[in-house]
């Protein structure tokens, strides 16, 4: 382990390296999740068992769900996507390599928080992965808080990642890679990240509210007068149902990508599959979540409407599944391991999909809800279809990642054991539709003992089978026979830049072969390895220490938050915040001194955003997810207001004249920011500086008035601890605080922009940063346009 080896893996921003980091880290979390699952299965293997206590069982059931869904399923797909999406579109890297690395490190930091939560007194979260309220905010200890803050970090990581992938897939396609030629895996990742982009902000909002309840004593989910459970269910499942497809679609993409390679014929109904997924599944996935809430007392008409929507979303899946089946007709079906897993995934999806149709009926839900039938259903979909698809991808791309061939016979044994173990594990659960889920013990009634015993047997077969996969991957990596350049004869781009015998460690030294499938563009990704270009001053052009520093800072900050208000907690928060600010500043300075080499953009097809520059597109995509973030907070506030009879009369708490003045200040800063942009468009750097300074002063004034207002409110008894004001104060401080944080971030950014302006960085023709900052600042302005009337006037 040389210094450069350590540096490479800690500071890398190369998409392949980050992909591998994602891949192995998610395998590690998958291992933890699997151990938790096995502990549960041991406990349930026989009736009246006392291997795990109720509390330990609840913790296992909770963290199994959270870890598997958020730290294993999605990230392992993101790992493969990191590695292969750029290769499939002929890009050198993702659009924002440092943000990509930051996504990874934030994901790991969140995972570390989640795992740490096991080791604090009282243990970890125990209210189920669905974190139903008010149980979750009432459960004691720092453990759950750590886990929930880990979720916030993870969601932040996913949001950054989705912006990055979105821009990359639009902007970095090589010449000739039009959308119609995009490989299916990339297509499905595009669908996945669009769903992620709009679903995860709501998750952030939900977990921020819950964490605030636990840490600073807000009362969003503890004041029973406002139906907190309904608020949580809506926020959580508005995210949660799209999340199901977020987990599923990468696996489907791999299946769609792999099938044609082993049938020797094109995928049937490719356009129909894309239309069904992109135009029906993804949008409609945001409109079916209430089928998780049939029993919460929502009106029968609403149950009917969501039942119909849920039924409707199964139609595109019928089209997809049957197209997969049709793709076998008149082909030459070869049963290599990836194909076996792809076909196995389709079969398991058929079963899981059909049980899903059962669950769409509110009448049947009166028996199935909260039972093992549900457990079986979502494991068939999320393990069966999604993980079998991912495993197909691992075998399929292993030769591309290692340059070596895996052991085919071992792969086939792995498939047979997995498929068998899976069904022995989950099929009996369909028959256990009368057994409540998440119970740590049961008495020996009916056939429960036998069916549970069978499930436990299956779980061990399934788990042990995965050792074969691990062995096969490691063995291939070190000792596998050299693979042919394109072992499956694939026309896709990622295979046509392949070099025999290449291992990732050797990437940087190889030259890509001439001529690929699309002519000129054998991807240059192989040449620009992590240490390919050294910038002046001895820094590696493609290495950056900032992503890991920032994530470490965030980790320390949030760990401190969990222990707030203890002195250690406060200390950690200060240190963490300083590290974050310092490293962001360093990030900016790296840019100022050209220490980081951003890979060049290929001149390719950029439809449908051809006329929108890369950074601007990134900003718009980011802001669109911010819309959902603020919208979720405001939605929660409106819900609380509508559900509460007693609320402080408008005007009695907040000083309206002061609020109006402050609103005018912010509105005016929007105008001055626009004038700043206008100035540099005319090439006037002095005016740019002047208007930026004006904007900064107005923004700072706005924050100053805020501080004064908050002080007054605190002195006037508008505090969380005051029962009469608690809920109103909770909503006000969280929403306005979040907006204030955005303004503060804007002020810091402006300092940086002004520093660059003084050095003459911006010119008439090059001032993207000013324009993009203008978008951000205007957005902050818009948010306040809603916050002001909602909190001060209504």
């Amino acid at each position, binding site marked *: 382990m040389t210094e450069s080896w350590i540096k490479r893996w800690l500071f890398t921003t190369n998409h392949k390296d980050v992909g591998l980091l994602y891949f192995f880290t998610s395998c590690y979390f998958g291992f933890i999740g699997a151990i938790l699952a096995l502990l549960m299965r041991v406990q349930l293997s026989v009736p009246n068992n006392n291997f795990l206590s*109720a*509390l330990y069982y*609840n913790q296992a*059931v909770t963290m199994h769900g959270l870890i598997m869904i958020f730290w294993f399923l999605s990230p392992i797909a993101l790992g493969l996507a990191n590695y292969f999406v750029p290769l499939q579109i002929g890009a050198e890297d993702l659009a924002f390599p440092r943000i990509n690395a930051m996504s990874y490190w934030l994901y790991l930091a969140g995972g570390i928080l989640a795992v740490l939560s096991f080791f604090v007194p009282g243990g970890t979260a*125990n*209210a*189920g992965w669905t974190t*139903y309220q*008010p*149980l979750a905010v009432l459960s004691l200890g720092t453990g759950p808080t750590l886990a929930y803050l880990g979720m916030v970090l993870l969601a932040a990581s996913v949001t950054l990642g989705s912006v990055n992938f979105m821009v990359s897939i639009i902007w970095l396609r090589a010449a000739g890679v039009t959308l119609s030629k995009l490989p299916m895996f990339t297509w499905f990742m595009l669908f996945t990240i669009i769903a992620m982009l709009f679903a995860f902000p709501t998750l952030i909002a939900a977990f921020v509210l819950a964490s605030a309840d636990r840490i600073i004593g807000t009362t969003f989910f503890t004041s*029973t007068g*406002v*139906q907190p*459970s*309904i608020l949580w269910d809506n926020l959580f499942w508005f995210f949660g149902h799209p999340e199901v497809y977020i987990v599923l679609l990468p696996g489907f993409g791999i299946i769609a990508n792999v099938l044609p390679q082993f*049938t*020797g*014929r094109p995928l*049937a109904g*490719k356009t*129909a599959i894309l239309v069904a997924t992109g135009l029906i599944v993804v949008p409609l996935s945001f409109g079916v979540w209430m089928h998780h809430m049939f*029993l919460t*007392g929502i009106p*029968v008409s609403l*149950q009917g409407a969501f*039942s*119909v929507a849920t*039924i409707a979303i199964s*139609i595109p899946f019928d*089209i997809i599944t*049957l*197209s997969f*089946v*049709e793709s*076998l*007709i*008149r*082909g*030459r*079906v*070869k049963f290599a391991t990836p194909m076996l897993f792809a*076909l196995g995934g389709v*079969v398991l999806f*058929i079963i899981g999909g*059909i049980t899903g*149709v059962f669950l769409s*009926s*509110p*009448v*049947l839900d*009166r028996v199935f*809800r*909260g*039972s093992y039938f549900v457990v079986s259903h979502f494991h068939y979909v999320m393990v069966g279809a999604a993980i079998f698809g991912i495993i197909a991808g691992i075998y399929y791309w292993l030769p591309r990642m290692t340059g070596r061939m895996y052991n085919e016979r071992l792969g086939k044994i792995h498939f047979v054991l997995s498929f068998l173990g899976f069904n022995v594990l989950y099929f009996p659960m369909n028959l256990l539709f009368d057994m*409540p889920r*998440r119970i740590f*013990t049961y008495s020996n*009634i*009916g*056939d429960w003992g036998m069916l549970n015993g069978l499930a436990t047997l299956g779980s061990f077969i399934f788990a042990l089978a995965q050792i074969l996969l691990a062995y096969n991957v490691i063995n291939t990596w070190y000792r596998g026979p050299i693979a042919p350049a394109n072992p499956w004869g694939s026309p896709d781009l990622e295979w046509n830049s392949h070099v025999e015998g290449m291992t990732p460690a050797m990437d940087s030294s190889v030259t890509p072969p001439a001529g690929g499938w699309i002519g000129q563009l054998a991807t240059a990704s192989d040449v620009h390895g992590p240490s390919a270009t050294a910038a002046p001053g001895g820094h590696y052009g493609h290495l950056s220490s900032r992503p890991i520093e920032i994530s470490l800072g965030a980790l320390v900050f949030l760990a401190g938050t969990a222990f707030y208000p203890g002195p250690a907690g406060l200390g950690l928060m200060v240190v963490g915040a300083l590290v974050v600010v310092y490293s962001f500043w360093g990030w900016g300075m790296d840019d100022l001194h050209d220490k980081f080499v951003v890979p060049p953009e290929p001149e390719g097809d950029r439809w449908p955003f051809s006329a929108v520059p890369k950074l601007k597109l990134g900003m718009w995509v980011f802001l669109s997810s911010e819309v959902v973030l603020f919208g979720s907070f405001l939605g929660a506030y409106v819900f609380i207001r509508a559900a509460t009879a007693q609320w402080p009369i408008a005007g009695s708490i907040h000083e309206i004249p002061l609020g109006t003045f402050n609103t005018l200040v912010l509105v005016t800063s929007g105008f001055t920011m626009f004038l700043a942009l206008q100035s540099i468009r005319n090439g006037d750097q002095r005016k740019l500086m002047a208007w930026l300074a004006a904007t900064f002063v107005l923004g700072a004034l706005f924050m100053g008035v805020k501080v004064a207002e908050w002080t007054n409110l605190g002195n006037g008894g508008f505090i969380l601890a005051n029962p009469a004001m608690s809920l109103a104060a909770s909503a006000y401080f969280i929403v306005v605080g979040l907006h204030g944080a955005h303004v503060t971030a804007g002020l810091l950014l402006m300092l940086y922009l002004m520093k660059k302006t003084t050095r003459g960085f911006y010119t008439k023709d090059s001032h993207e940063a000013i324009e993009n900052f203008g978008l951000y600042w205007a957005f902050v302005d818009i948010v306040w346009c809603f916050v002001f009337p909602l909190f001060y006037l209504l």
Partner: protein
Amino acid sequence: MYSGLLSLPPTTATFYSLLNWYLIFGIGAAIIVIAALVVFMVKFRYRGEKSPMPEHKVEGWKIVLITTLISMTVLTAAEYQTFAAFNNIEIPNNASCMANTGSPCVQIHLTAFQWGWNFTYPNGKSQINNLTVPAGRDVVVNISAKDVFHTFGIDMFAAKEDAIPGKTNHLWFIVPAVQVTAPPEVKVTCNSAGTWCQYLNAVRCFELCGVGHALMWANLTVISQSAWNTWMGGK
């Protein structure tokens, strides 16, 4: 699973006839599609170079159209059956209870707590972990929770509803006789006079509510109408 000798509560009967529809559609569809996959997979397996050259047609709009039409038909039929069974989840008012049984609905209040069930009856009495209902009367349970989210479920009546703090939800069922069919996991004890039957652990919690979740049960006692009237003392 149910023997045909005893009478089946109507909500249960509706549930099972609906479930049968879904099972016929579901198992049928699963068998057809999986069988097709296996048949094609075997029939078109690669047999060396003597295999016929593969298809090159990309689009299969015809099959997409057929799939959509068949799925829509089957799913609409299933959804229609569900809507026809909505009587199970609609809460009757007093008028419909009168029309149905000749008496107003029996209103029982339930407060779920960590970890048990507190039932309060029209006569003001309450019972912990035992739900007593009269046979032959429409029963409406008004459900709330004291502390956290629970789910109140009586599987043998195919009835289930969330118990949520700060909110009252409703659930309806009718037990046609003192002794009705119960699934194998519910033990039944009846007295010899036939005026009551007790269904052991027929009520369970179906939402994770803390360490006591697994043991959050209640018994169901069905008593005859005359016994009920006596107990109510004319109320």
